[in-house]
């Protein structure tokens, strides 16, 4: 095997002369790249799906009838707060009928903002009773027309439609898991008991399924008016839901709304902080594992090139005495590292793709956090490019260290010894 490039020819003869360790090192590199690709495909698939689901099924922003900081107390005004000698604790909140004051005005104002859609709701805890089952759930009172604009609830309906709420007074839509556990189906009449003690019989007119287990298990919808009656809070709105044309802007817009209206306003990112920080940990684990494999592969490359250099000191000496420069010598061994890296990368791409396909074909029937039958796999060229780039960089570095040593070898030292 001869090419027109002398350094490449020499590099190739060395590698083909030590085929077994070369193949081992190459497979190590390939495994690192493949593992990174498969892990990334799976984790980003899951994370992406999860975040998309969240963006779809829940409001991008929710304004609640709470304040982030406790209200300023009259005493605080009397004493300098920062260096005050008095600090208040155990402040007992007034038993007000909580709710967002001026909710109508906020809804009207925000409805006029560009890129923003608004839906007022009343959220409260209820217990559903059907047959022998008692199940706690959140009942969200909605205006179906507005809700349609704000969440994809209408799309997630598996039985009945959102409009059926309007058709019957005293009707309810249940999450699929909730309905299953109650053993209630379309047309059944379930009893709802609110915390205020009010009891109301509601007819099941719809069942939704989002795929997010938590929502399907604990959320139900009724007309706003019915919810207000059930909670004994006429005309009260305690949560305003917003959807955005650009969901990624939620953090910033939530902050603006909170500054403007005072009520605690939560973006979807904040609401899902817990799971998103789990994703970050997942990413760290993924990078750490891939890096560890790549590091081992690097040792493989370092090892074989160091071995080759030791075996070929005489070649290095004679080439240098002939007039090869240190850079020429370094190039020979760098090329070897890059060949291993390049072949490993391409094998890794193939293997990573195959592993991704394999993972995508495994049936898992998961019913935790989200309900799915298969893992979500994304095929993104970026994964292949970043994995490949990391692999080539690592290979270059692993080869560069011994190659530098080869370049610095003094031919005289070797020839003196070699002549004996």
């Amino acid at each position, binding site marked *: 095997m*001869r090419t*027109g490039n*002398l350094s490449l020819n020499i590099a190739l003869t060395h590698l083909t002369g030590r085929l077994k360790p070369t193949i081992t090192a190459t497979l190590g590199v390939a495994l690192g790249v493949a593992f990174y690709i498969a892990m990334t495909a799976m984790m980003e698939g899951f994370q992406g799906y999860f975040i998309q689901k969240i963006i779809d099924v829940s409001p991008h922003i929710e304004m609640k009838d709470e304040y982030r900081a406790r209200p300023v107390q009259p005493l605080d005004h009397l004493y300098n707060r920062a260096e005050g000698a008095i600090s208040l604790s155990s402040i007992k909140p007034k038993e007000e009928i909580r709710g967002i004051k001026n909710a109508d005005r906020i809804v009207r104002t925000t409805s006029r903002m560009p890129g923003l859609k608004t839906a007022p709701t009343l959220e409260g805890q209820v217990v559903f009773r059907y047959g022998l089952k008692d199940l706690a759930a959140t009942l969200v009172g909605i205006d179906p027309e507005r809700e349609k604009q704000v969440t994809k609830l209408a799309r997630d309906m598996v039985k009945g439609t959102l409009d059926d709420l309007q058709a019957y007074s005293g009707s309810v839509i249940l999450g699929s898991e909730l309905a299953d556990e109650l053993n209630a189906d379309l047309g059944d009449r379930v009893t709802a008991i609110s915390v205020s003690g009010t009891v109301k019989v509601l007819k099941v007119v719809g069942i939704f399924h989002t795929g997010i287990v938590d929502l399907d298990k604990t959320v139900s919808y009724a007309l706003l008016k019915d919810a207000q009656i059930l909670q004994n809070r006429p005309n009260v709105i305690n949560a305003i839901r917003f959807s955005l044309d650009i969901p990624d802007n939620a953090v910033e817009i939530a902050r603006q709304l909170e500054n403007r209206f005072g009520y605690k306003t939560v973006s979807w990112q904040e609401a899902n902080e817990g799971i998103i920080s789990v994703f970050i940990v997942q990413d760290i684990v993924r990078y750490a594992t891939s890096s560890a494999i790549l590091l081992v592969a690097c040792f493989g490359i370092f090892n074989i090139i160091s071995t080759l250099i030791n075996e070929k000191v*005489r*070649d290095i000496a004679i080439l240098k*005495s002939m*007039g090869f420069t240190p*850079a020429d010598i370094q190039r020979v061994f760098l090329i070897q590292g890059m060949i291993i890296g390049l072949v490993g990368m391409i094998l890794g791409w193939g293997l990573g793709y195959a592993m991704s396909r394999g993972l995508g074909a495994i049936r898992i029937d998961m019913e935790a956090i989200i309900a799915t039958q298969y893992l979500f796999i994304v095929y993104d060229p970026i994964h292949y490019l970043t994995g490949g780039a990391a692999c080539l960089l690592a290979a270059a570095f692993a080869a560069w260290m011994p190659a530098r040593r080869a370049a610095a070898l003094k031919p*005289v030292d070797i*020839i003196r010894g070699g002549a004996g």
Partner: protein
Amino acid sequence: MTASRPPLIETREVTRILPLEVPVTLVKDISLTVQAGEFVSVTGPSGSGKSSLLYLLGLLDRPTKGEVLVNGQPTGPLSDVALCDLRLRKLGFVFQFHFLLAEFTVRENVMVPMHKLGVLSLRQRTERAESLLGSIGLADHLDKYPSQLSGGQRQRVAVARALANEPEVILADEPTGNLDTKNSEVVQDILRSLVDAGNTSVIMVTHDPALAAHADRNIHLVDGRIVPTP
């Protein structure tokens, strides 16, 4: 040869000391000249510094003191890369051990320096390698690997490789040291005929006075210094 032409290689008061814990003086105060077209032998007892001197003349090593000049040009100020280039264009080495590349055929081994020089085309390189190898009786072994040759044949390939870029001087360090008398004479004759043909000088280290007798001139070393040949 006109008077204005500088010697091919000249050393002025060259001393080489290895900076070890106990410094070792390899050669001391060597001043010599080698003219173009000369066949110079270097003799001396083992450990007298013959190889060390050859490495200095061949620009493989730099003197601790003094100056080595090639074609009248001082080499001290030149960078390592510039020395590499001088070696590539002007010098050819033959060592006691052949140092052939094991994975390259005989023909390819001879082509390596030409490839590095980058003047000839692939076809020209091939032709030149074959004619060089033919002239030293290896025409039948072009596609063999060094391991398939005898010691004498390998050493002849090494000579052919040293000649690849038409060097001005061949530096040989006991090129026949590993060879029997017959092969030794073959290599010796090749070197002699090169000088006789005109274009190349030879500096050859040997401990064999009989071989040294073939040279035009002898340099005798004892303890790193030039002394009169006994």
